């Protein structure tokens, strides 16, 4: 017989898995880089968040809960800033290309 915490944990993990699946589909199916960036950061961080919540239900001790939340927080910071950096990179690259093509034409 499973306890209520275990059932909740399974439920949240499944939701998290669904968001990861959505992120992967977005990465594969979206048409251009900006869209893919979208799919990555949103679906992905929600997925990790739900899995962390699911694991918190079975983790047992307060330090572990703090560590799990810290991991989620770090992943949020990392993903969002990486998203900014990559977006900025694409933008800069297109500007460089315009400058290069401008005088030639």
């Amino acid at each position: 017989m499973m306890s209520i915490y275990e059932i909740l944990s399974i439920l949240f993990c499944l939701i998290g898995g669904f968001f990861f699946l959505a992120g992967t589909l977005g990465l594969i199916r979206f048409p251009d880089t900006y869209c893919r960036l979208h799919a990555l950061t949103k679906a992905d961080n929600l997925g990790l968040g739900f899995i962390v919540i699911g694991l918190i239900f079975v983790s047992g001790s307060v330090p572990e809960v703090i560590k799990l939340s810290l991991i989620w927080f770090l992943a949020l910071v990392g993903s969002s800033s990486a998203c900014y950096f990559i977006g900025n990179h694409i933008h800069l690259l297109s500007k460089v290309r315009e400058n290069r093509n401008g005088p030639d034409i």
Partner: protein
Amino acid sequence: MGLIFDLIIGLSLAGVAWRIVRVREHFQAIVLFITFGLLLSLAWTRLKSPDIAIAEAAVGAGLAGVLLMDALGTLSSTRNQPLPGRFLQLFIPCLFLAGLMAYTILFIPADFQGLGPMVSEALPDTHLEYPVTAVLLDFRGYDTWLELGVLLVAVLGVLCVRQAGTIKGSMLPAPAEPVGRWIIKLLLPLMVLIGGYLLWLGAFAPGGAFQAGVVLASGGVMLWQAGHPSLALLHHVWWKILMISGFVFFLILASSSLLYNQQFMTHPEAKMWILGVEYAATLSIAICLISLVLASPARNQGDQRARKTES
């Protein structure tokens, strides 16, 4: 379920490695190599070695990616060359070697014990609770000592190649970016904290000087990446002292045992000394790795070009 997991990890490791070797674009190979590190650390967890998973995570996610990306960035104008045509000539000997090695695995005796029992027998003498740390810093102290020596030799080699007296010459401020600065402010204290945590953990659990050193080095590299000037504030004499501190401290400890008419590299007050060595080793691993990553002589050109595009 476990076996399916192992099979899929094994197959994907082999597939990714094959793709890394055969793909034409260098950039794709490097991204695949980062993924390879991730899959490898999943494999370490399945093999019950959290120590190595942690080290692999720190090296594979952080430093290796940075090193290869930087190298590719400064060398990127090389065209992607076509692959050579001598496929079979090279492939068949490699296949033969693989067959030979597989043959040896099948003949490991079934009652093979390994060195585990011996280590757990001798563990109480070191007053350490965690066998891997005990092996690293006590039983196989030579290895760790020489490994610090290898790091030093690598830094010396870089200095020779660059024909420079100090690493610090190449430390240019990177382009100042608001998000870059923000992420430094947020992540750097956490890196120092987590590095310290891993070091403290090493006495009784997976963690220790290597992982902590790599994490601290990642922090230093990140400072440099985000264009923070604070690395240059450390005087280069201190830089050198920190670099050799692990090696020298180990040597002093090892030869001090000669004074007591004991064997080389044995020590009476094991635990205190071992922890001291561990802390010094962490610092020098961190500083040496930072120096190795920062040593990029071609950076000047790129910087000038960037200034031109900005103005």
